[in-house]
């Protein structure tokens, strides 16, 4: 009823150093910058290859310079962090169902010609795959795609 005096705890600018989990989170977010860099690097390489042997050699000597190597090693570390954290978080962020799931009827509101009406819809329940299975399948997918690309490039 009356406004009490309270003390607002200040949030430090360095909040993200205080806990290991916060620090890892910030690194994880920063890793997307390096992922973007590697995508750009890849595009530059593709363009360089497309322009012929000389341009490709130019690209390779640039890529071999110490600065670029250091950047790319760091970027690789962040890429690994990005991949590992992304794969680990996937089962938490989305429900992946396996053969054990069944159909069930639920009523949802759907948009029909601009109006919202109740309609019976089919939802799936149960059969949620364990996190380990979801994570393992992502790594499996990564290995398969990597093997294919390696074969493409090396043959």
């Amino acid at each position, binding site marked *: *009823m*009356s406004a*009490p*005096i309270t003390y607002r705890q200040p949030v430090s600018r360095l909040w993200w150093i205080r806990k290991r989990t916060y620090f890892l989170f910030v690194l994880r977010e920063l890793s997307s910058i390096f992922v973007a860099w590697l995508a750009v690097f890849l595009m530059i390489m593709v363009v360089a290859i497309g322009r012929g042997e000389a341009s490709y050699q130019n690209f390779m000597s640039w890529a071999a310079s110490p600065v670029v190597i250091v950047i790319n090693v760091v970027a690789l570390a962040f890429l690994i962090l990005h991949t590992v954290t992304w794969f680990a978080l996937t089962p938490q962020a989305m429900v992946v169902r396996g053969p054990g799931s069944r159909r069930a009827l639920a009523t949802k509101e759907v948009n029909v010609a601009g109006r919202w009406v109740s309609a019976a819809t089919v939802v799936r329940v149960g059969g949620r795959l364990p996190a380990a299975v979801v994570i393992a399948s992502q790594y499996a997918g990564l290995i398969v795609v990597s093997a294919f690309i390696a074969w493409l490039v090396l043959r």
Partner: protein
Amino acid sequence: MNDGAAAAHDVLLVGGGAAGLRAAIAIAETSPSLRVAVISKVYPMRSHTVSAEGGAAGAIAEGDTLDEHAYDTVSGSDWLCDQDAVEAFVQEAPRELLQLEHWGCPWSREPDGRIAVRAFGGMKNMRTWFAADKTGFHMLHSLFQTSLKYADVKRYDEWFVTRLLVDEGRVHGVVAIELMTGRIEVITAKSILLCNGGSGKVFPFTTNANICTGDGMALAYRAGAPLKDMEFVQYHPTGLPFTGILITEAARAEGGWLLNKDGYRYLQDYDLGKPEPTPVLRSMELGPRDRLSQAFVHEVEKGRTIESPYGPIVHLDLRHLGAKLIDTKLPMVRELCMKYERIDPVTELIPVRPVVHYMMGGVHTDIDGATPIHGLFAAGETACVTINGANRLGSNSLPECLVFGARAGKAAAEYAASAKRPAPVVMRKAEDEVRRLEQMRSSDGGHERIADIREEMQSTMEDSAGIFRSGDSLAKGIDQLAELQQRLERVQLFDQTMAFNTELVAALELANMLDIAETMLQSAIQREESRGAHQRTDFTTRDDASFLNHALAYRDSDGSVRIERLPVTITRWPPGERVYGR
């Protein structure tokens, strides 16, 4: 505008647990024009309803009948319940539980989607609805979240009501402290429903939370309403030894066994049936709570209990139930044992002992929750209608909160709809109370610590009014309590600030508890028989001729307790023998 009061309402609900929230919803739905408010010393989701585990009884199964639920309740109460109230209760319980289901309560289900029911102590049929083993938690949160639909219901969260304002036999409002700021305010109301729980903290070992200090009972008692059946205190047979944390009866309903130090299912020695590998209704571990707790005391006397650092204990054996059943039906039991006893019930025995759990007694009301003071109602554990008599059956108290919360809420609304505005004269009584509280907060020169008086009260109650009592132990307890009342007047408050002064609250709660404790002992010493949870070593049998009645404890003007008697209402079940296990 409000004659100096901070606010005026039509109905004020004191307490935000299952009964209070159910009443709020009932009034908001049936009388939306009334101004309703819920006032509670804690946020509603902290109410002690949240700790209830086992389930809520409602007769819906094939082959179950209302009459059988009623008979189990009547016999469970050792014939001290009022049977008209029981009949209304068993009829409305299933409807209330279904209503809660519609409000989202996640009741556990059969594979086909229907509500599942399980066995429970003292019940001949399976009729206990459950939400895993966190039934009270789910019920409270479903009720609380549903109550949020009604934005007009005003809430006073963390306000402590210290006094009812009564004038000429009618209630007019309350004086309450807004805990966050320490301001003392008057809130007027045309009708008031007391639903703020029981008073287990009067005893040292209890399943009850810190907030269960009998505030509602004390408010009514000091306002002149009688407290009924205060001598009947339920000991739950299975609480953890140090903390008193509840291990739900459902553990026994699912098949758990009680073993003494020889690994022997000792209940078979106490006329509770023969041990079978799977649970038999109304037999052995599914007997009524009073008989099981009494059996424990006898085992202690025979030297067959296990000594622990916290006194004698027995073992609850769930190992034969298997991890899968325990994780589905009793997950919280497993968590509690692992955290607080560092044992895993899947592979180890759980140490348990009887602990105080529930007050069968409370504010005397009729079947619609009305007390003798006009405009004052009570429901839930605060009230004594009574459907529980001398001993409550497990899983009856949650539906009791719903049934009588709704009934009393509607009755309070009906009263308020035609009542006159609260009289301005009560503001003067309020001023006395405000002055008293301010004096308490700022007083100097006392020397007693709250904790010391509280601990002595608790051990006095344990010694004088435990599972077994005697005239001597009770008389001694009465004297000791009188001394503690004196010492309370010399208590020292270290905390003199306004904001969130929990020490002031603790002192007020202690004063409430001392008053309640006195009514318990006085009621007990005058009941010269043994019935249900009240067992006298000097009067060992049930005496229907003299004591098939309730004790009504009134506060005399000099502060002493005056006991009057009120006959029990018998409708269809004449007093008989309580038979379990055969």
